[in-house]
Protein backbone atom coordinates (compact mmCIF):
# COMPACT_ATOMS: atom_id res chain seq x y z
CA UNK A 1 0.00 0.00 0.00
CA UNK A 2 1.20 3.43 -0.83
CA UNK A 3 0.63 6.15 1.72
CA UNK A 4 0.10 9.66 0.40
CA UNK A 5 -0.52 12.58 2.70
CA UNK A 6 -1.05 16.08 1.36
CA UNK A 7 -1.12 19.24 3.47
CA UNK A 8 -2.21 17.32 6.55
CA UNK A 9 -3.11 19.79 9.30
CA UNK A 10 -4.26 18.92 12.79
CA UNK A 11 -4.83 20.82 16.03
CA UNK A 12 -5.57 19.27 19.40
CA UNK A 13 -8.55 21.05 21.01
CA UNK A 14 -9.28 22.74 17.72
CA UNK A 15 -11.84 25.16 19.09
CA UNK A 16 -10.13 26.13 22.33
CA UNK A 17 -8.13 29.34 22.44
CA UNK A 18 -4.99 27.53 23.62
CA UNK A 19 -5.09 25.16 20.67
CA UNK A 20 -1.82 24.54 18.89
CA UNK A 21 -1.15 23.05 15.50
CA UNK A 22 0.53 19.67 15.92
CA UNK A 23 0.53 19.15 12.17
CA UNK A 24 0.77 22.13 9.88
CA UNK A 25 0.59 20.96 6.30
CA UNK A 26 2.52 17.70 6.36
CA UNK A 27 3.03 16.32 2.85
CA UNK A 28 4.66 12.94 2.51
CA UNK A 29 4.62 9.80 0.38
CA UNK A 30 5.64 6.38 1.64
CA UNK A 31 5.91 3.75 -1.08
CA UNK A 32 5.11 0.09 -0.74
CA UNK A 33 8.34 -1.74 0.11
CA UNK A 34 9.95 1.16 1.95
CA UNK A 35 11.78 0.78 5.24
CA UNK A 36 10.91 4.33 6.15
CA UNK A 37 12.37 6.46 8.94
CA UNK A 38 10.60 9.40 10.56
CA UNK A 39 12.77 11.76 12.60
CA UNK A 40 12.27 15.09 14.31
CA UNK A 41 12.45 16.73 17.70
CA UNK A 42 9.93 16.08 20.46
CA UNK A 43 6.77 17.95 19.54
CA UNK A 44 7.49 18.13 15.82
CA UNK A 45 4.34 16.16 14.92
CA UNK A 46 5.74 12.65 14.34
CA UNK A 47 3.36 10.81 16.65
CA UNK A 48 0.32 12.82 15.55
CA UNK A 49 1.19 11.95 11.97
CA UNK A 50 1.50 8.21 12.46
CA UNK A 51 -1.73 8.07 14.44
CA UNK A 52 -3.48 9.34 11.32
CA UNK A 53 -2.26 6.35 9.32
CA UNK A 54 -4.78 3.91 10.77
CA UNK A 55 -7.49 6.41 11.58
CA UNK A 56 -6.83 6.74 15.29
CA UNK A 57 -6.96 10.50 14.77
CA UNK A 58 -9.67 11.75 12.40
CA UNK A 59 -8.57 13.99 9.57
CA UNK A 60 -9.17 17.71 10.10
CA UNK A 61 -7.84 19.14 6.87
CA UNK A 62 -5.67 18.01 4.00
CA UNK A 63 -5.91 14.58 2.38
CA UNK A 64 -4.57 11.18 3.30
CA UNK A 65 -4.84 7.92 1.39
CA UNK A 66 -3.52 4.61 2.66
CA UNK A 67 -3.72 2.09 -0.16
CA UNK A 68 -7.32 2.27 -1.38
CA UNK A 69 -8.53 3.89 1.84
CA UNK A 70 -9.35 7.57 1.68
CA UNK A 71 -9.24 8.90 5.23
CA UNK A 72 -11.28 12.04 4.66
CA UNK A 73 -14.23 11.79 7.06
CA UNK A 74 -17.49 12.03 5.08
CA UNK A 75 -19.91 14.75 6.19
CA UNK A 76 -23.15 12.85 5.54
CA UNK A 77 -24.28 10.79 8.49
CA UNK A 78 -24.84 7.54 6.62
CA UNK A 79 -21.56 7.69 4.74
CA UNK A 80 -19.78 8.57 7.95
CA UNK A 81 -21.14 5.44 9.59
CA UNK A 82 -19.88 3.25 6.74
CA UNK A 83 -16.53 5.04 6.89
CA UNK A 84 -16.11 4.38 10.58
CA UNK A 85 -16.96 0.73 10.00
CA UNK A 86 -14.33 0.45 7.28
CA UNK A 87 -11.66 1.69 9.68
CA UNK A 88 -11.49 -1.73 11.27
CA UNK A 89 -10.32 -3.16 7.98
CA UNK A 90 -7.73 -0.40 7.67
CA UNK A 91 -6.49 -1.12 11.17
CA UNK A 92 -5.87 -4.74 10.30
CA UNK A 93 -3.78 -3.59 7.32
CA UNK A 94 -1.77 -1.00 9.22
CA UNK A 95 -0.29 -2.52 12.37
CA UNK A 96 0.62 0.07 14.97
CA UNK A 97 3.28 -0.61 17.60
CA UNK A 98 3.41 2.20 20.13
CA UNK A 99 6.30 3.26 22.34
CA UNK A 100 6.99 0.71 25.05
CA UNK A 101 4.32 -1.67 23.70
CA UNK A 102 5.11 -4.17 26.44
CA UNK A 103 3.19 -1.92 28.87
CA UNK A 104 0.07 -2.95 26.98
CA UNK A 105 0.47 -6.67 27.61
CA UNK A 106 -2.32 -7.80 29.90
CA UNK A 107 -3.21 -11.48 29.58
CA UNK A 108 -2.11 -14.29 31.84
CA UNK A 109 -0.20 -16.13 29.17
CA UNK A 110 1.65 -15.14 26.02
CA UNK A 111 -0.73 -17.29 23.97
CA UNK A 112 -3.82 -15.52 25.32
CA UNK A 113 -2.29 -12.10 24.82
CA UNK A 114 -1.58 -12.72 21.15
CA UNK A 115 -4.94 -14.49 20.70
CA UNK A 116 -6.72 -11.31 21.79
CA UNK A 117 -5.55 -9.57 18.64
CA UNK A 118 -6.40 -12.54 16.43
CA UNK A 119 -9.97 -12.84 17.80
CA UNK A 120 -10.46 -9.12 17.43
CA UNK A 121 -9.60 -9.06 13.77
CA UNK A 122 -10.91 -12.50 12.81
CA UNK A 123 -14.14 -12.81 14.83
CA UNK A 124 -15.35 -15.69 12.68
CA UNK A 125 -12.21 -17.78 12.95
CA UNK A 126 -12.54 -21.25 14.47
CA UNK A 127 -10.53 -22.16 17.56
CA UNK A 128 -8.16 -24.13 15.35
CA UNK A 129 -7.58 -21.19 13.05
CA UNK A 130 -6.99 -18.89 16.03
CA UNK A 131 -4.46 -21.33 17.48
CA UNK A 132 -2.71 -21.58 14.14
CA UNK A 133 -2.50 -17.81 13.69
CA UNK A 134 -1.28 -17.29 17.26
CA UNK A 135 1.47 -19.86 16.82
CA UNK A 136 2.48 -18.33 13.53
CA UNK A 137 2.67 -14.79 14.97
CA UNK A 138 4.76 -15.92 17.94
CA UNK A 139 7.15 -17.78 15.68
CA UNK A 140 7.38 -14.81 13.31
CA UNK A 141 8.89 -12.67 16.06
CA UNK A 142 11.55 -15.29 16.69
CA UNK A 143 10.21 -16.80 19.90
CA UNK A 144 9.95 -20.53 20.58
CA UNK A 145 6.20 -21.22 20.79
CA UNK A 146 6.52 -24.29 22.98
CA UNK A 147 8.77 -22.43 25.38
CA UNK A 148 6.82 -19.21 25.84
CA UNK A 149 3.16 -19.88 24.95
CA UNK A 150 2.01 -20.79 28.44
CA UNK A 151 4.32 -18.41 30.28
CA UNK A 152 3.16 -15.13 31.76
CA UNK A 153 4.37 -12.33 29.48
CA UNK A 154 5.61 -10.58 32.62
CA UNK A 155 8.15 -13.34 33.28
CA UNK A 156 9.97 -12.60 30.02
CA UNK A 157 12.93 -10.28 29.47
CA UNK A 158 12.44 -6.75 28.17
CA UNK A 159 13.34 -7.66 24.61
CA UNK A 160 11.09 -10.74 24.65
CA UNK A 161 8.12 -8.79 26.03
CA UNK A 162 8.43 -6.34 23.22
CA UNK A 163 8.45 -9.23 20.73
CA UNK A 164 5.24 -10.58 22.23
CA UNK A 165 3.64 -7.15 21.85
CA UNK A 166 4.73 -7.04 18.21
CA UNK A 167 3.36 -10.58 17.71
CA UNK A 168 0.00 -9.28 18.93
CA UNK A 169 0.08 -6.66 16.20
CA UNK A 170 1.30 -9.09 13.51
CA UNK A 171 -1.66 -11.33 14.40
CA UNK A 172 -3.94 -9.17 12.26
CA UNK A 173 -1.62 -9.86 9.29
CA UNK A 174 -0.90 -6.22 8.48
CA UNK A 175 0.72 -5.11 5.23
CA UNK A 176 2.30 -2.07 6.81
CA UNK A 177 3.93 -2.02 10.22
CA UNK A 178 4.32 1.33 11.98
CA UNK A 179 6.56 1.39 15.05
CA UNK A 180 7.09 4.37 17.35
CA UNK A 181 10.64 4.12 18.76
CA UNK A 182 10.78 0.33 18.58
CA UNK A 183 14.15 -0.07 20.31
CA UNK A 184 13.93 2.62 23.02
CA UNK A 185 14.93 1.27 26.43
CA UNK A 186 16.43 -1.99 25.13
CA UNK A 187 20.00 -3.07 25.78
CA UNK A 188 22.34 -2.99 22.76
CA UNK A 189 22.11 -6.70 21.96
CA UNK A 190 18.29 -6.83 22.23
CA UNK A 191 18.21 -3.70 20.12
CA UNK A 192 20.24 -5.28 17.33
CA UNK A 193 18.13 -8.43 17.43
CA UNK A 194 14.87 -6.50 17.21
CA UNK A 195 16.10 -4.43 14.28
CA UNK A 196 17.22 -7.52 12.43
CA UNK A 197 13.83 -9.10 13.16
CA UNK A 198 12.13 -6.13 11.48
CA UNK A 199 14.39 -6.59 8.46
CA UNK A 200 13.57 -10.29 8.30
CA UNK A 201 9.82 -9.55 8.37
CA UNK A 202 10.35 -6.96 5.66
CA UNK A 203 12.70 -9.02 3.45
CA UNK A 204 10.54 -12.15 3.56
CA UNK A 205 7.41 -10.18 2.69
CA UNK A 206 5.54 -10.86 5.94
CA UNK A 207 5.00 -7.11 6.00
CA UNK A 208 5.51 -5.07 2.87
CA UNK A 209 6.28 -1.70 4.37
CA UNK A 210 7.93 -0.75 7.67
CA UNK A 211 7.77 2.75 9.12
CA UNK A 212 9.80 3.56 12.22
CA UNK A 213 9.93 6.72 14.30
CA UNK A 214 13.39 7.05 15.79
CA UNK A 215 15.54 9.43 17.80
CA UNK A 216 18.69 7.49 17.00
CA UNK A 217 20.26 8.78 13.80
CA UNK A 218 22.55 5.75 13.63
CA UNK A 219 19.52 3.46 13.54
CA UNK A 220 17.98 5.51 10.74
CA UNK A 221 21.20 5.53 8.75
CA UNK A 222 21.81 1.81 9.19
CA UNK A 223 18.26 0.60 8.57
CA UNK A 224 16.12 2.89 6.44
CA UNK A 225 16.02 3.40 2.69
CA UNK A 226 14.13 6.68 3.03
CA UNK A 227 13.72 9.24 5.76
CA UNK A 228 11.46 12.21 6.47
CA UNK A 229 12.36 15.06 8.81
CA UNK A 230 9.49 16.63 10.76
CA UNK A 231 9.78 20.17 12.06
CA UNK A 232 6.94 22.24 13.52
CA UNK A 233 4.30 19.94 12.04
CA UNK A 234 5.74 20.01 8.54
CA UNK A 235 7.85 17.57 6.57
CA UNK A 236 10.90 19.71 5.82
CA UNK A 237 12.85 17.03 4.02
CA UNK A 238 12.28 13.61 2.51
CA UNK A 239 15.13 11.69 0.89
CA UNK A 240 17.67 8.89 1.35
CA UNK A 241 19.37 8.97 4.77
CA UNK A 242 22.81 9.27 3.18
CA UNK A 243 22.06 12.41 1.22
CA UNK A 244 20.18 13.84 4.21
CA UNK A 245 23.09 13.48 6.60
CA UNK A 246 25.65 14.63 4.06
CA UNK A 247 23.80 17.94 3.79
CA UNK A 248 23.80 18.54 7.48
CA UNK A 249 23.63 22.36 7.44
CA UNK A 250 20.08 22.36 8.60
CA UNK A 251 18.60 23.62 11.85
CA UNK A 252 16.59 20.49 12.62
CA UNK A 253 19.51 18.22 11.85
CA UNK A 254 21.97 20.19 13.92
CA UNK A 255 19.72 19.49 16.89
CA UNK A 256 19.16 15.82 16.09
CA UNK A 257 22.84 15.04 15.60
CA UNK A 258 24.56 12.99 12.94
CA UNK A 259 25.14 9.27 12.66
CA UNK A 260 28.77 8.43 13.38
CA UNK A 261 29.67 7.65 9.76
CA UNK A 262 28.29 10.97 8.49
CA UNK A 263 30.01 12.80 11.34
CA UNK A 264 33.39 11.32 10.39
CA UNK A 265 32.84 12.04 6.70
CA UNK A 266 32.18 15.68 7.59
CA UNK A 267 35.18 15.91 9.94
CA UNK A 268 37.58 14.40 7.40
CA UNK A 269 36.25 16.65 4.66
CA UNK A 270 37.41 19.55 6.83
CA UNK A 271 41.02 18.47 6.33
CA UNK A 272 40.58 17.68 2.65
CA UNK A 273 40.07 13.92 2.91
CA UNK A 274 37.04 12.53 1.08
CA UNK A 275 35.58 9.32 2.44
CA UNK A 276 31.98 8.74 1.48
CA UNK A 277 29.68 7.85 4.37
CA UNK A 278 27.98 4.44 4.27
CA UNK A 279 24.84 2.89 5.62
CA UNK A 280 26.70 0.14 7.43
CA UNK A 281 29.38 0.97 9.90
CA UNK A 282 31.43 -2.05 8.68
CA UNK A 283 31.44 -0.75 5.08
CA UNK A 284 32.49 2.67 6.25
CA UNK A 285 35.36 1.27 8.30
CA UNK A 286 36.57 -0.68 5.27
CA UNK A 287 36.49 2.50 3.20
CA UNK A 288 38.59 4.25 5.84
CA UNK A 289 41.15 1.44 5.78
CA UNK A 290 41.27 1.45 1.99
CA UNK A 291 41.69 5.21 1.90
CA UNK A 292 44.47 5.12 4.47
CA UNK A 293 46.57 2.58 2.56
CA UNK A 294 45.80 4.08 -0.86
CA UNK A 295 48.82 5.24 -2.92
CA UNK A 296 51.36 4.35 -0.30
Amino acid at each position, binding site marked *: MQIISKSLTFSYNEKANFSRRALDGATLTVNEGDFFGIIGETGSGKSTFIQHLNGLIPLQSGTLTVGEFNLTVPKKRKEKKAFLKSLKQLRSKVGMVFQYPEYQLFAETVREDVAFGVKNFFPNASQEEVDFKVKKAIELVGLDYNLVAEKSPFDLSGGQKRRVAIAGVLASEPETLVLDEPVAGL*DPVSKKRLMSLLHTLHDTGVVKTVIIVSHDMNDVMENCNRVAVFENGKVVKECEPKSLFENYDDYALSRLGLPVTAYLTK*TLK*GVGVNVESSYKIEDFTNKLIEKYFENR
Partner: protein
Amino acid sequence: MPFFKIMKAVELKNVSFKYGSGENLAVIKNLSLSVEKGEFLCVLGENGSGKSTLAKLINGLLLPDSGEVEVFGSNTKDKKSVYEVRKKVGMVFQNPDNQMVATIVEDDVAFGPENVGVSSEEIGERIDFALKAVGMEKFRFVAGQKLSGGQKQRVAIAGALALKPEVLILDESTAMLDPMGRKEVMQVAEKLNDEGMTLITITHYMKEAVKADRVVVLHEGEIVVSGTPEQVFSRPEDLKKYGLDVPRATYIAEKLKKSGVPIKSGILTEEELGEELCKLFQNR
Protein backbone atom coordinates in the same frame (compact mmCIF):
# COMPACT_ATOMS: atom_id res chain seq x y z
CA MET B 1 32.59 3.31 62.92
CA PRO B 2 35.74 5.21 63.90
CA PHE B 3 35.22 8.89 63.19
CA PHE B 4 38.45 9.34 61.25
CA LYS B 5 37.53 6.84 58.57
CA ILE B 6 36.66 8.45 55.23
CA MET B 7 32.98 7.95 54.74
CA LYS B 8 31.77 6.24 51.61
CA ALA B 9 28.81 7.86 49.88
CA VAL B 10 27.19 4.51 49.22
CA GLU B 11 28.25 1.13 50.48
CA LEU B 12 26.61 -2.20 49.68
CA LYS B 13 27.90 -5.24 51.56
CA ASN B 14 26.97 -8.72 50.35
CA VAL B 15 23.50 -7.59 49.34
CA SER B 16 20.96 -10.13 48.07
CA PHE B 17 17.43 -9.37 47.02
CA LYS B 18 14.57 -11.13 45.33
CA TYR B 19 11.00 -10.18 44.47
CA GLY B 20 8.54 -12.52 46.14
CA SER B 21 9.58 -16.00 47.17
CA GLY B 22 10.96 -18.82 45.07
CA GLU B 23 14.28 -20.38 44.26
CA ASN B 24 15.46 -18.83 41.04
CA LEU B 25 14.13 -15.34 41.36
CA ALA B 26 17.16 -13.68 42.98
CA VAL B 27 17.58 -10.31 41.28
CA ILE B 28 20.64 -9.17 43.21
CA LYS B 29 23.09 -11.82 44.32
CA ASN B 30 25.59 -11.22 47.09
CA LEU B 31 26.61 -7.89 45.61
CA SER B 32 29.19 -5.59 47.15
CA LEU B 33 29.86 -2.13 45.80
CA SER B 34 31.04 1.14 47.23
CA VAL B 35 30.79 4.58 45.72
CA GLU B 36 33.11 7.40 46.81
CA LYS B 37 31.82 10.86 47.57
CA GLY B 38 31.94 12.91 44.37
CA GLU B 39 32.34 9.89 42.12
CA PHE B 40 30.51 9.45 38.79
CA LEU B 41 29.55 5.80 38.52
CA CYS B 42 27.77 4.36 35.50
CA VAL B 43 25.85 1.08 35.76
CA LEU B 44 25.38 -0.92 32.57
CA GLY B 45 23.65 -4.23 32.02
CA GLU B 46 21.10 -5.92 29.81
CA ASN B 47 17.35 -5.69 30.43
CA GLY B 48 16.53 -7.60 33.60
CA SER B 49 20.08 -7.62 34.95
CA GLY B 50 19.04 -5.88 38.20
CA LYS B 51 20.10 -2.28 37.53
CA SER B 52 16.89 -0.58 38.62
CA THR B 53 16.55 -2.90 41.61
CA LEU B 54 20.04 -1.83 42.65
CA ALA B 55 19.01 1.83 42.43
CA LYS B 56 15.94 1.23 44.58
CA LEU B 57 18.03 -0.61 47.15
CA ILE B 58 20.33 2.38 47.44
CA ASN B 59 17.64 4.81 48.55
CA GLY B 60 15.74 2.36 50.70
CA LEU B 61 12.71 1.95 48.43
CA LEU B 62 13.61 -1.73 48.62
CA LEU B 63 15.33 -3.38 51.55
CA PRO B 64 17.87 -6.18 51.08
CA ASP B 65 16.92 -9.75 52.03
CA SER B 66 20.44 -10.12 53.37
CA GLY B 67 23.46 -7.86 53.56
CA GLU B 68 23.65 -4.15 54.33
CA VAL B 69 23.13 -0.94 52.36
CA GLU B 70 24.61 2.20 53.87
CA VAL B 71 24.38 5.77 52.62
CA PHE B 72 26.87 8.05 54.35
CA GLY B 73 26.91 5.62 57.22
CA SER B 74 23.11 5.39 57.62
CA ASN B 75 21.72 1.91 57.15
CA THR B 76 18.58 1.66 55.00
CA LYS B 77 17.28 -1.09 57.29
CA ASP B 78 17.25 1.29 60.23
CA LYS B 79 13.70 2.65 60.40
CA LYS B 80 14.86 5.86 62.06
CA SER B 81 17.29 6.75 59.33
CA VAL B 82 15.50 5.60 56.17
CA TYR B 83 13.98 9.07 55.65
CA GLU B 84 17.45 10.57 56.08
CA VAL B 85 18.67 8.16 53.41
CA ARG B 86 15.92 9.17 51.01
CA LYS B 87 16.72 12.83 51.54
CA LYS B 88 20.33 12.10 50.73
CA VAL B 89 19.63 10.07 47.60
CA GLY B 90 17.65 11.81 44.87
CA MET B 91 16.27 9.68 42.06
CA VAL B 92 15.03 10.55 38.59
CA PHE B 93 13.31 7.86 36.53
CA GLN B 94 12.71 7.16 32.88
CA ASN B 95 9.39 8.68 31.92
CA PRO B 96 9.26 12.50 32.10
CA ASP B 97 5.45 12.49 32.09
CA ASN B 98 5.14 10.27 35.14
CA GLN B 99 7.16 12.46 37.45
CA MET B 100 5.30 15.76 37.45
CA VAL B 101 3.04 16.22 40.46
CA ALA B 102 2.05 19.87 40.03
CA THR B 103 0.83 21.99 37.13
CA ILE B 104 3.42 24.75 37.46
CA VAL B 105 7.18 24.13 37.42
CA GLU B 106 7.74 26.06 40.66
CA ASP B 107 5.13 23.99 42.56
CA ASP B 108 6.57 20.79 41.22
CA VAL B 109 10.04 21.61 42.53
CA ALA B 110 8.55 22.74 45.86
CA PHE B 111 6.72 19.44 46.40
CA GLY B 112 9.67 17.64 47.97
CA PRO B 113 10.81 20.30 50.43
CA GLU B 114 7.19 21.07 51.40
CA ASN B 115 6.72 17.45 52.30
CA VAL B 116 9.67 17.35 54.64
CA GLY B 117 8.57 20.57 56.38
CA VAL B 118 11.04 23.12 55.04
CA SER B 119 9.99 26.71 55.91
CA SER B 120 8.37 28.67 53.10
CA GLU B 121 11.21 31.21 52.89
CA GLU B 122 13.74 28.48 52.52
CA ILE B 123 11.57 26.69 49.94
CA GLY B 124 11.76 29.83 47.82
CA GLU B 125 15.54 29.82 48.08
CA ARG B 126 15.73 26.15 47.26
CA ILE B 127 13.57 26.59 44.16
CA ASP B 128 15.90 29.37 43.01
CA PHE B 129 18.92 27.23 43.59
CA ALA B 130 17.51 24.04 42.07
CA LEU B 131 16.10 25.63 38.91
CA LYS B 132 19.31 27.56 38.37
CA ALA B 133 21.37 24.40 38.76
CA VAL B 134 19.50 22.76 35.87
CA GLY B 135 19.26 25.94 33.78
CA MET B 136 15.47 26.17 34.01
CA GLU B 137 15.06 29.40 36.04
CA LYS B 138 13.23 31.11 33.18
CA PHE B 139 10.54 28.42 33.26
CA ARG B 140 9.63 28.88 36.92
CA PHE B 141 6.02 29.91 36.27
CA VAL B 142 5.44 27.81 33.15
CA ALA B 143 2.98 24.91 33.05
CA GLY B 144 4.70 21.53 33.10
CA GLN B 145 2.91 20.14 30.08
CA LYS B 146 4.32 22.92 27.91
CA LEU B 147 7.88 21.71 28.38
CA SER B 148 9.83 19.40 26.11
CA GLY B 149 10.91 15.98 27.37
CA GLY B 150 14.43 17.17 28.15
CA GLN B 151 13.09 20.19 30.02
CA LYS B 152 10.70 18.01 32.03
CA GLN B 153 13.55 15.74 33.06
CA ARG B 154 15.59 18.76 34.10
CA VAL B 155 12.66 19.90 36.26
CA ALA B 156 12.54 16.38 37.73
CA ILE B 157 16.24 16.70 38.57
CA ALA B 158 15.53 20.13 40.11
CA GLY B 159 12.81 18.49 42.23
CA ALA B 160 15.40 16.04 43.51
CA LEU B 161 17.98 18.80 44.07
CA ALA B 162 15.52 20.83 46.13
CA LEU B 163 15.90 18.21 48.83
CA LYS B 164 19.65 18.88 48.83
CA PRO B 165 20.68 15.30 48.15
CA GLU B 166 24.26 14.08 48.38
CA VAL B 167 23.76 11.42 45.73
CA LEU B 168 21.83 11.71 42.47
CA ILE B 169 20.67 8.56 40.69
CA LEU B 170 19.49 8.84 37.08
CA ASP B 171 17.72 5.59 36.22
CA GLU B 172 17.57 5.62 32.41
CA SER B 173 16.48 9.23 32.62
CA THR B 174 17.43 9.88 29.00
CA ALA B 175 15.81 6.81 27.43
CA MET B 176 12.66 8.56 26.25
CA LEU B 177 14.26 11.80 25.09
CA ASP B 178 15.29 13.08 21.69
CA PRO B 179 19.03 13.66 21.06
CA MET B 180 18.91 17.28 22.21
CA GLY B 181 17.04 16.33 25.38
CA ARG B 182 19.57 13.59 26.15
CA LYS B 183 22.39 16.07 25.76
CA GLU B 184 20.71 18.65 28.02
CA VAL B 185 20.16 16.13 30.81
CA MET B 186 23.67 14.69 30.63
CA GLN B 187 25.24 18.15 30.61
CA VAL B 188 23.32 19.10 33.74
CA ALA B 189 24.28 15.83 35.44
CA GLU B 190 27.95 16.26 34.60
CA LYS B 191 27.96 19.86 35.80
CA LEU B 192 26.45 18.80 39.15
CA ASN B 193 29.07 16.08 39.43
CA ASP B 194 31.84 18.60 38.70
CA GLU B 195 30.48 20.64 41.59
CA GLY B 196 30.82 17.68 43.93
CA MET B 197 27.56 15.74 43.65
CA THR B 198 27.96 11.97 43.75
CA LEU B 199 26.37 10.72 40.52
CA ILE B 200 25.11 7.26 39.64
CA THR B 201 23.65 6.79 36.15
CA ILE B 202 21.97 3.73 34.71
CA THR B 203 21.82 3.67 30.93
CA HIS B 204 21.72 1.66 27.72
CA TYR B 205 23.56 4.34 25.78
CA MET B 206 27.21 3.31 25.72
CA LYS B 207 27.96 6.89 24.72
CA GLU B 208 26.78 8.14 28.11
CA ALA B 209 29.05 5.76 29.98
CA VAL B 210 32.30 7.09 28.54
CA LYS B 211 32.35 10.20 30.74
CA ALA B 212 31.99 8.26 34.00
CA ASP B 213 34.87 7.77 36.46
CA ARG B 214 33.96 4.13 36.76
CA VAL B 215 31.70 1.71 34.92
CA VAL B 216 30.23 -1.46 36.39
CA VAL B 217 28.42 -4.08 34.35
CA LEU B 218 25.64 -6.06 35.99
CA HIS B 219 24.66 -9.50 34.78
CA GLU B 220 22.04 -11.60 36.52
CA GLY B 221 22.38 -9.55 39.67
CA GLU B 222 26.15 -9.70 39.94
CA ILE B 223 28.93 -7.29 39.00
CA VAL B 224 30.81 -9.02 36.19
CA VAL B 225 32.97 -6.21 34.83
CA SER B 226 34.23 -3.11 36.59
CA GLY B 227 36.77 -0.45 35.70
CA THR B 228 37.34 2.86 33.95
CA PRO B 229 35.43 3.33 30.66
CA GLU B 230 38.71 2.69 28.77
CA GLN B 231 39.23 -0.62 30.59
CA VAL B 232 35.62 -1.77 30.24
CA PHE B 233 35.26 -0.90 26.57
CA SER B 234 38.52 -2.62 25.68
CA ARG B 235 36.72 -5.94 26.29
CA PRO B 236 34.14 -6.06 23.47
CA GLU B 237 33.78 -9.85 23.62
CA ASP B 238 32.89 -9.78 27.31
CA LEU B 239 30.45 -6.95 26.79
CA LYS B 240 28.62 -8.81 24.01
CA LYS B 241 28.26 -11.80 26.30
CA TYR B 242 26.40 -9.55 28.75
CA GLY B 243 24.09 -8.00 26.16
CA LEU B 244 26.14 -4.85 25.74
CA ASP B 245 28.28 -3.33 23.08
CA VAL B 246 31.17 -0.92 22.70
CA PRO B 247 30.46 2.65 21.51
CA ARG B 248 30.45 2.87 17.70
CA ALA B 249 33.57 5.06 17.73
CA THR B 250 35.47 2.41 19.70
CA TYR B 251 34.32 -0.29 17.30
CA ILE B 252 35.64 1.62 14.28
CA ALA B 253 38.95 2.49 16.00
CA GLU B 254 39.61 -1.12 17.02
CA LYS B 255 38.87 -2.40 13.54
CA LEU B 256 41.23 0.14 12.00
CA LYS B 257 43.91 -0.90 14.43
CA LYS B 258 43.53 -4.58 13.58
CA SER B 259 44.03 -3.74 9.91
CA GLY B 260 47.32 -2.05 10.66
CA VAL B 261 46.29 1.60 10.85
CA PRO B 262 48.48 3.11 13.62
CA ILE B 263 45.60 4.58 15.62
CA LYS B 264 45.90 5.05 19.39
CA SER B 265 44.09 2.78 21.83
CA GLY B 266 41.25 3.69 24.13
CA ILE B 267 39.16 5.84 21.80
CA LEU B 268 35.66 6.24 23.23
CA THR B 269 33.95 9.18 21.59
CA GLU B 270 33.21 10.26 18.02
CA GLU B 271 35.00 13.55 18.62
CA GLU B 272 38.20 11.78 19.72
CA LEU B 273 38.01 9.45 16.73
CA GLY B 274 37.45 12.33 14.30
CA GLU B 275 40.40 14.24 15.68
CA GLU B 276 42.66 11.18 15.61
CA LEU B 277 41.66 10.30 12.03
CA CYS B 278 42.39 13.83 10.84
CA LYS B 279 45.86 13.63 12.37
CA LEU B 280 46.49 10.19 10.86
CA PHE B 281 45.46 11.20 7.37
CA GLN B 282 47.45 14.44 7.48
CA ASN B 283 50.66 12.71 8.61
CA ARG B 284 50.23 9.80 6.26
